[in-house]
């Protein structure tokens, strides 16, 4: 990690894409970085945070300010202010995080589009998309943000480019006087690769803001943005990130070219090498505005073009338009012709088959047969020892059968899956509380909202104010595990340190909730199941908003800390004599440390975290401590 800061110009390192973004920002002399974590870009923040620690340990001061912001809108506002003050600011967010920040982003563009309030310090937004939606609620394609907002966009295809483009994005932002969107995809953020470092930049450190004139002349502001985008087009036209790569090989009958962006560039290049055909690949990295002259010249050279891009036909639509404008007869193969899917994260095989088909060759990477033995997917479930499981286990026994559950974004959303199935809806940060109000109003049934600690600070407070003010008869369960756990245990406003390793004021959720006017507020440790059940019984019976803060540290964090301190983690086993096969532990409580062989249930001592809550769950008293385990 340290090399991100100490690595010298010309040296080669092996970094995660997200870490390469941090190096790129440091090479640009970034002054301020702020973000709310989210897969696939959380490691950008983790790297900044680690660098702060490393620098402070050496007795030095960090050259930048970094914060874990309460949400993406806050992080963007902090960065916009830095930019207006003449400093360079980096604001990364996941695709859905942009939706939270969009309010500020789209509105601020109008505010900063006067000559007097032009961007002084480069502002770079990283929008990390998640094709396949493995860690997100949808496959949102944030490339369209660049068109909606009218901002320049860069799209890296590998680790070297992700660093180079981050660094360059700040220069472009200052040259064009617009923020720059660095749009990445999961495969680029989360891939590692070798890259050569450039020189570290020199931060400006202190900004200055003069009076900001306000204009209500919206059309003049809009026109100014258009003018700036004309300048951006000139930069795109001569950008080194847009280039034609030639491949030598077998001549095919027709002249066929390929256009690709982002990670698809590396897939297309690899498959062309496998096919061994002579062709040209237009690799686009500066993708808004597109380099129109370069693109049109490229279209004109070929009888057929294949467009390779993940998700929506963003490039394809624009290429069809450009081909039309130059009256080209070029056939364009892509998503609209059914060659490539519009959904899902691409894999080599998904690009290989259609590319080979267009070139009239055999598919070089045909699909291979999977295993003959039926292998079920490993079920998504909370970790062994997770306090969220205990909260769900307790409340499930207390809630009436017609109860309606609104869930939220965090590890606890897994409570919506088997066997707890406690989610009738979950989609965006903080939505659970408003949903519970709506469900209560719409159905008259008991409604319960589940929300995490970090999510509560992110976007849970306004809906709670709404619920209290309208005196909705709902129960809100804040599942407080002491961190933004799902994205990697990041800090939030409830923790006693901040990203700069300074003492921070830890905000207690129960205090916030009382401050918002809730009268039923209880804090309970979910690892004590009987006590938790009793609290839920009263909370559900309460008329009006009841809030239960179910508070226990994330088990992964606790286990790590125990290991660090060299503490022993006790192991447990099932006394097969006492076990009466009631299956509560494995089917209803469903901790993944249990497994079954020939109708007998055992505890996997590598998985088990020694929390011992299952002892309380087992009615036969068959679970006992095995003695200390050093693993």
């Amino acid at each position, binding site marked *: 990690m340290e090399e991100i800061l100490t690595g010298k110009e010309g040296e*080669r390192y*092996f970094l995660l894409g997200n870490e390469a973004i941090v190096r790129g920002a440091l090479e640009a002399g970034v002054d301020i970085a702020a973000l709310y974590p989210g897969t696939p870009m959380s490691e950008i923040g983790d790297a900044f945070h680690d660098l702060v620690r490393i620098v402070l340990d050496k007795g030095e001061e960090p050259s930048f300010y970094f914060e874990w912001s309460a949400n993406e809108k806050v992080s963007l506002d902090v960065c916009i202010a830095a930019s207006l003050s003449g400093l360079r600011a980096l604001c990364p967010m996941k695709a859905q995080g942009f939706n939270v920040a969009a309010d500020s982003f789209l509105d601020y563009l109008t505010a900063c589009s006067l000559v007097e309030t032009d961007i002084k310090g480069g502002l770079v937004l990283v929008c990390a998309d998640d094709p396949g939606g*493995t860690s997100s609620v949808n496959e949102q394609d944030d490339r369209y943000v660049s068109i909606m907002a009218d901002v320049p966009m860069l799209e890296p295809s*590998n*680790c070297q480019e992700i660093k180079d483009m981050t660094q360059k994005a700040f220069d472009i932002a200052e040259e064009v006087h617009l923020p720059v969107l660095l749009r990445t995809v999961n*495969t680029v953020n*989360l*891939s*590692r*690769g*070798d890259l050569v470092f450039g020189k570290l930049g020199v931060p400006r450190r202190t900004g200055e803001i003069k009076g900001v004139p306000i204009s209500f002349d919206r059309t003049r502001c809009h026109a100014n943005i258009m003018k700036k985008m004309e300048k951006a087009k000139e930069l795109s036209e001569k950008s080194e990130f847009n280039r034609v790569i030639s491949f030598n090989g077998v001549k095919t009958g027709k002249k066929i070219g390929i256009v690709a962006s982002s*990670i698809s560039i*590396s*897939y297309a*290049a*690899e498959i062309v090498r496998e096919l061994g055909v002579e062709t040209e690949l237009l690799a686009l990295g500066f993708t808004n505005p597109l380099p129109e002259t370069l693109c049109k010249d490229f279209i004109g050279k070929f009888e057929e073009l294949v467009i390779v891009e993940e998700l929506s036909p963003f490039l394809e639509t624009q290429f069809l338009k450009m081909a039309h404008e130059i009256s080209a007869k070029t056939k364009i193969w892509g998503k609209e012709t059914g060659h490539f899917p519009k959904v899902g994260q691409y*894999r*080599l*095989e998904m690009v*290989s088959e259609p590319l080979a088909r267009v070139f009239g060759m055999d598919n070089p*990477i*045909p*699909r*291979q*047969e*999977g*295993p003959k*033995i*039926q*292998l*079920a997917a*490993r*079920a*998504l*479930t*909370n*970790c*062994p020892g997770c306090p969220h499981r205990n909260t769900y286990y307790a409340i499930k026994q207390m809630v009436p059968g017609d109860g309606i559950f609104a869930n939220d974004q965090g*590890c606890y959303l*897994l409570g919506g*899956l*088997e*066997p707890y199935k406690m989610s009738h809806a979950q989609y965006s940060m903080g939505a659970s509380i408003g949903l519970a109000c709506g469900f209560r109003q719409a159905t008259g049934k008991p409604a319960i909202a589940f929300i995490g600690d970090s999510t509560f600070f992110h976007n849970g407070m306004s809906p709670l104010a709404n619920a209290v003010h309208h005196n909705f008869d709902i129960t809100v369960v804040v599942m407080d595990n002491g961190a933004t*756990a*799902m994205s990697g245990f990041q800090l939030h406003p409830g923790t006693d340190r901040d990203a700069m390793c300074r003492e921070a004021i830890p905000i207690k959720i129960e205090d916030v909730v009382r401050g918002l006017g809730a009268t039923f507020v209880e804090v309970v440790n979910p690892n004590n199941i009987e006590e938790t059940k009793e609290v839920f019984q009263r909370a559900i019976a309460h008329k009006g908003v009841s809030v239960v803060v179910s508070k226990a540290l994330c088990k*992964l964090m606790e286990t790590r800390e125990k*290991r660090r301190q*060299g503490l022993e983690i006790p192991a447990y086993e099932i006394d097969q004599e006492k076990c009466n096969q009631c299956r509560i532990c494995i*089917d209803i409580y*469903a*901790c*993944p440390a*249990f*497994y*079954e*062989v020939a109708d007998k249930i055992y505890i*996997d001592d590598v*998985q088990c975290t020694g929390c011992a809550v299952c002892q309380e769950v087992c009615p036969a008293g068959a679970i006992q401590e095995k003695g200390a385990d*050093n*693993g």
Partner: protein
Amino acid sequence: MDRKGTNILLAGVGGLGVITASNIIGTAAVKVGKKVSSAEVHGIAQRGGSVMGTVRIGDYSVSPLLGDGRADIILGFEPLEVLRNIARASKTTIVITDTTPIRVITPTRFIYPKLEDIFAEIQERCARLYKIDCLTLARKAGTAIVRPSVLLGALSEIEEFPIGAEVLLKTIEENVPARYKEANISAFKEGANFIRANL
């Protein structure tokens, strides 16, 4: 120029060290002047879900993902997960796998197949299969946590692996917490000895 390069696939479940091992192999490859692309594919759960990693080492840049049939070496952290990724293997693939199953069946009543059936099918789809009881060897080396180093030690003895054992071990030493350094070194040696004894 080595046009083909070496493709390594690592298969396991969250928490077993797939990502750590990928990083160590990649870092070592950069040390010996190779180009590397590496990817990790996993779900949203922190622990217990299937995890697949790739490390592609060669003389020119390639995509981080691996096509079907293109794994030269598969490093298995869990036997069933090796089988899950078997489409990436070919008749020339070398498989080194930990024999310790993660039998988690909750909450879907997923019954773990018989280990001998899993190994038989892997064997059928690859050139060579090395089965190592990494958990036992890691505990012998000091602690179960150092299981990845047993596999890395084994990997270092495979002729097709393009990085020397000394570089790989040095990279491990530089990248593990100081309190586990000795155990990692011992585990690495256990893994290497296993392959030497079973070549």
